[in-house]
């Protein structure tokens, strides 16, 4: 167990240092969600005039989405970094050491996890500074940060799974539009009950991303909504199981292959 902890810690430190040394990974992950938040909060303010809209401020409504958009960068960053390790032969060399696959994946997630903490704090801080408020109070803000962190880790796990399966950084980058589609075809810009197009409402309803956003949003707009939070945490748990669990299993094959 001690050896395993040491392996995770060494690989984790490497992952964090690598993330910190790549401004191209950090700056867009922090900046783009904030830009989109500002643009949408301003451009869609009139949507709050619609009957039944759950908030008087579109900033409050849109804030939850910033956390999720930040998590998309986690998918791409983690996937690209791991794919680069495969392409450069780092993983091949690791296969000659006693390092365990679980330690490798967990260590790889450390960089994204560190970035996720910074992202969550920055997004919440920027939102509050711009006038947003969290209806669930300080405890709700803490749950918001935890949920946001877990969503990033879960998305990073999916990125890791894709990286291990494809072994190609370009393939990960190519999947970015699909991940982005998952975000846009959800209730990110409008509550599901106010979406007029039936086909779009149906897609948003079966899209798990909607429930992730609604869980985050519920803490800001409603206070404590047990169902929304349960769905959100449940989907995160499933994603972690599929992503991280799948990556660990797939890594066995890849390490055996080398």
């Amino acid at each position, binding site marked *: 167990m001690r050896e395993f902890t040491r392996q995770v810690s060494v690989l984790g430190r490497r992952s964090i240092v690598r993330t910190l040394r790549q401004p191209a990974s950090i700056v867009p992950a922090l900046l783009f969600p904030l830009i989109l938040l500002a643009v949408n909060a301003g451009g869609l303010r009139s949507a709050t005039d619609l009957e039944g809209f759950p908030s008087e401020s579109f900033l409050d409504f849109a804030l939850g989405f910033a956390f999720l958009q930040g998590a998309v960068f986690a998918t791409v960053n983690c996937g690209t970094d791991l794919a680069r390790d495969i392409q450069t032969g780092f993983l091949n060399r690791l296969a000659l050491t006693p390092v365990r696959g679980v330690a490798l994946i967990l260590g790889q997630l450390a960089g994204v996890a560190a970035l996720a903490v910074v992202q969550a704090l920055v997004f919440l801080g920027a939102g509050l500074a711009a006038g947003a408020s969290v209806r669930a109070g300080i405890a709700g803000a803490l749950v918001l940060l935890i949920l946001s962190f877990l969503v990033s880790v879960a998305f990073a796990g999916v990125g890791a799974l894709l990286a291990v399966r494809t072994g190609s950084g370009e393939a990960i980058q190519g999947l970015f539009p699909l991940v*982005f589609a998952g975000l846009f075809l959800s209730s990110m810009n409008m509550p599901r009950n106010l979406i007029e197009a039936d086909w*779009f409402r149906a897609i948003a309803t079966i899209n798990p991303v909607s429930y992730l956003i609604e869980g985050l949003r519920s803490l800001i707009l409603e206070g404590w909504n047990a169902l929304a939070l349960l769905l959100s945490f449940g989907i995160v748990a499933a994603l972690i199981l599929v992503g991280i669990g799948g990556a660990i299993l797939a890594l066995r094959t890849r390490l055996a292959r080398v």
Partner: protein
Amino acid sequence: MLRRTRAGGSFIAVARGVAWRNLHNHFSHPMYFVPSLVFPLLFFTAFTGALGALTNVRGFDFEAGYEGFQYVFVLIQTAAFGGVFTGFAIARDFETGFARRLLLAAPNRKGIIAGYAIAALGRWVFTAVIVTGVAFAAGMTVPAGPGVLPLYALALLINGAGILFASGVAMRLRTVQAGPLMQTPVFLALFLAPVYVPLAVLEGWIHSIARYNPVTAFLEAGRGFLVGRPSGVGLAFGLAVALLLAFGVWALRGLRNAETSG
């Protein structure tokens, strides 16, 4: 006279060669053309699907429906980003060393910029045809009929301005890492305009910025063309031509910069 003819001939030959190579690379690699096609379609689908209720907001009055309202934005966006994505290709050519060989071999280097501009146009036309088809399939109506054609002329000028801006950046920095410097200003200019609702319905700080944003003039004129009530046409075309000329100078100076960098 003969010399001028030869210079003209080499300009065309270089432009044609660069354009063909770029278009060939673009359409033979899905990782290049899929994102440039997927993103505008995604924006169109997500905006029209999710935000149709905005037509119920007081002051929102647009005959062609929300599909038409968003179609103009997405068309202008594809035009601008068609240019920007071609700028990525220029930066990639510098990273691989191809652009340096091209600078050595081309008898007329201005033809290089023209070639990339033609490629950007070809890429945009392809995307615009698909987006237009999807918009019609989604139920868009065009009350103006053939009167909508100036919208495409306007988009063409924007596409030219986009590629000239991006090529100026790419030729100065000569690395793909310059991508955000090409993309972010265009993205901001596009989204700090009346994207979701008309200018009159926008409120607060974004209204103040949108009033002076050239993209607002493009969108308002474009939406006017679609419904057959053009307004602000002179301003929109004037701004588009001014941007084209300014970024033309920017691109040519970028070319000089690349030439002198060795």
